């Protein structure tokens, strides 16, 4: 796969990849992309089919400073309801143009991001206020003793080998986009280990492991109502389907209850899980 300068990289990937995006009827082998009705987020740029089917083209972009507000909204509850330097965190993500993807809709005047995916080296950014606060928060909420030791190591001495995987999107983003989105991220990380101008930067992308913070639903013990097929067997419902795969592959994980959202149905407590894998 040709690797030009950062700006062109995005374009080349898009046109050559037959498996993915933009998802429109002209792609071979991919069924016409349909989004049922839930188009309020997208604004005015779709045409409505006769059965209420909406067609939408999504485009992947490098992060840029203009995306600040949209990305901030997506990451609003990243660390539950703690007050932390979220603006600084978003700035960090947007400044890293070599690794990271923002998904937008084609022809959308609003230019709102639908999803943000990126990997941040914890060691490279360890002096930033937001990263310090993130580390403090995770160390504080981790209740499991065997995990906390590893976590402390990760945050401390081994920080330069750790990539914080940030992946957040609107709930109804089409799942067809996920494989190319994640492929893109890992491709960019490997390209960055070769393309970055300084040796230090190149090394900062040689991640030995990734850390993921994500939201899930865990069934409350007192509720015996079951929804068929919707839980992962151990009572966990994954909001993002790829989280289930990541969780299975992870070396360790822990979860803690969220305060920001109170859901009063079967899954009474939303819990955030922190993964780690190689």
């Amino acid at each position: 796969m040709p690797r030009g300068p950062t700006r062109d990289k995005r374009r080349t990937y898009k046109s050559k990849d037959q498996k993915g995006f933009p998802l429109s009827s002209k792609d071979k082998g991919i069924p016409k992309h349909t989004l049922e009705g839930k188009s309020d987020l997208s604004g005015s740029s779709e045409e409505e089919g006769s059965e209420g089917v909406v067609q939408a083209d999504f485009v992947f972009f490098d992060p840029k400073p203009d995306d600040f507000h949209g990305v901030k909204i997506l990451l609003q509850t990243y660390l539950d309801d703690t007050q932390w330097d979220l603006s600084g965190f978003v700035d960090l993500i947007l400044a890293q143009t070599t690794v990271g993807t923002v998904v937008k809709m084609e022809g959308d005047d609003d230019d709102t991001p639908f999803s943000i995916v990126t990997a941040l080296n914890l060691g490279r950014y360890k002096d930033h206020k937001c990263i310090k606060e993130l580390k403090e928060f995770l160390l504080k909420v981790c209740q499991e003793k065997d995990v906390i030791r590893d976590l402390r190591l990760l945050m401390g001495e081994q920080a330069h080998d750790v990539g914080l995987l940030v992946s957040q999107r609107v709930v109804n983003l089409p799942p067809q986009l996920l494989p190319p989105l994640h492929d893109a991220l890992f491709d960019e990380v490997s390209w960055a280990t070769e393309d970055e101008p300084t040796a230090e930067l190149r090394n900062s992308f040689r991640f030995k492991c990734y850390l993921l913070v994500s939201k899930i639903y865990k069934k409350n013990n007192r509720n015996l109502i079951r929804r068929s097929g919707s839980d992962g067997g151990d009572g966990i419902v994954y909001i993002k389907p790829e989280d289930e795969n990541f969780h299975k592959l992870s070396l360790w994980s822990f979860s803690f209850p969220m305060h920001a959202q109170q859901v009063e149905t079967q899954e009474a407590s939303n819990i955030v899980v922190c993964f780690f894998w190689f």
Partner: protein
Amino acid sequence: MATRLMFENSCEVGVFSKLTNAYCLVAIGGSESFYSTFEAELADVFPVVKTSIGGTRIIGRLCAGNKNGLLLPHTTTDQELQHLRNSLPDQVVVQRIEERLSALGNCIACNDHVALTHTDLDRETEEMIADVLGVEVFRQTIAGNILVGSYCSFSNRGGLVHPHTSIEDLDELSTLLQVPLVAGTVNRGSEVIAAGLTVNDWTAFCGSDTTATELSVIESVFKLREAQPSALVDEMRKSLIDSYV
């Protein structure tokens, strides 16, 4: 003086609070630091009241008020209404109105003398506004947006409007409102002025993303810098002292 603060990681302070010249409403459930920032500025002047409206925290966008009165949407519960009537000063008339457009804070922007409203507001509501708030009502749009309450914020001394407002519109609005207006942004380029900022005649609160430039524009258009006692004395000095010997 303008203060920067956050409500639970959100910089939209104008959504979770309502500030006027006679009272201040603050949403419940935020961290204590949100409430105490308001108290620190205002407690010795008038009550800072914690409330919800219709069980929600977005009180700034649901209600509209000034020093004369407070208008609440039909979704306000009886307990909330009673709580507000008890907590606010007696001269403030608290009224719940039946209006289809229930986000009154988004539909109505007002100071103590003039109000700008959404073009589709009921005639009855317009009369209520004029009556309860004691203002002159004008149906207007701001930069083509009908939600005037969201895209502009003005006090008795100045106002800030949507950044894409044309010069002609600015002049027209300025004549209507009889205050100087400036087109600008808040919270690092956000166009929804009233969501990011809440202001009265001597103080303002805005989201912590607000840049130093935006803050200085806010302080200058709302004349907050001159709200210091020393500024008053400096101005008076010229008229008090005839000549130096």
